[in-house]
């Protein structure tokens, strides 16, 4: 008679653990979403804490960092290069070309975004649309 409630409890506990396991795996699974407005470019978003997967082009990626509301941009990037934007701030930023359509990436707080640099060489002025004081230039050559 005592065995039946015990079995029921074990079954319930197993069900709860199983369900919570499903939930946690769903929230921690890396996801990739498009985050760019320009039709000529592609961008990906890696959530905070998610592992970045290695790809054949990873070694050639250029890194732009955002820290303390400042962009750190390489001297120049090659046309069509893969550019990673790492936002180390606690707030979101954007990496938006002043000339509409060249690039527009939302850099989520603590995450790394990836986009393709413009294929046309030139100096592209950019800004953060959320913080008008954050500006700079991306040289493509």
């Amino acid at each position: 008679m005592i065995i039946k409630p015990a079995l029921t409890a074990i079954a319930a506990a197993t069900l709860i653990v199983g369900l919570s396991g499903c939930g946690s795996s769903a929230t921690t699974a890396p996801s990739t979403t498009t985050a760019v407005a320009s039709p000529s470019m592609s961008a990906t978003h890696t959530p905070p804490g998610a592992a970045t997967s290695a790809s054949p082009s990873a070694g050639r990626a250029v890194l732009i960092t955002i820290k303390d509301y400042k962009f750190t941009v390489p001297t120049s990037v090659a046309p069509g290069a893969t550019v990673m934007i790492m936002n180390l701030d606690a707030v979101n930023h954007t990496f938006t070309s002043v000339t509409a359509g060249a690039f527009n990436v939302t850099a989520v707080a603590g995450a790394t975004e990836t986009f393709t640099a413009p294929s046309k060489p030139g100096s592209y002025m950019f800004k953060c649309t959320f913080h008008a004081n954050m500006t700079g230039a991306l040289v493509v050559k």
Partner: protein
Amino acid sequence: MSTTDQKRTHRPRTPRSPAKLALRALIAMALLVDAMVHLDLAGGYQLAAPSGLGAGNLFRLESVVAVGAAVFVLVRGNRSSYAAAFVVAASALSAVLLYRYVDVPALGPFPAMYEPLWFPEKTLSAIAEATAAIAAGAVLLKSRRP
């Protein structure tokens, strides 16, 4: 009507000295500048820090409260209105200085808003808040009852 009643009736509700009128106008103007800057920045800051209430909504709330205090000072110009202006301006100044120099994490409805820099609009609002707080504080101190 007794003499006391007549005195009470004719006593101006608010001091009319030019200096005090100028201070009232200064406090109200400073609060309105503060409100305009916050309202102008609210859209971008809401997208930048949307967690909790969101930075933009807090900015909008600050704008509404600052406009209310400015109108209160202009319309009434009494101790309560100066006290309200002082509280609004001093709290806003404290917040901007706190988030400029201390990396405060998200706390309940308040998102992380650490911003370790000054830029023209932010500086303008901080100066406006300081002006309103100092002027309102000065009026409060001067009109202190014995």
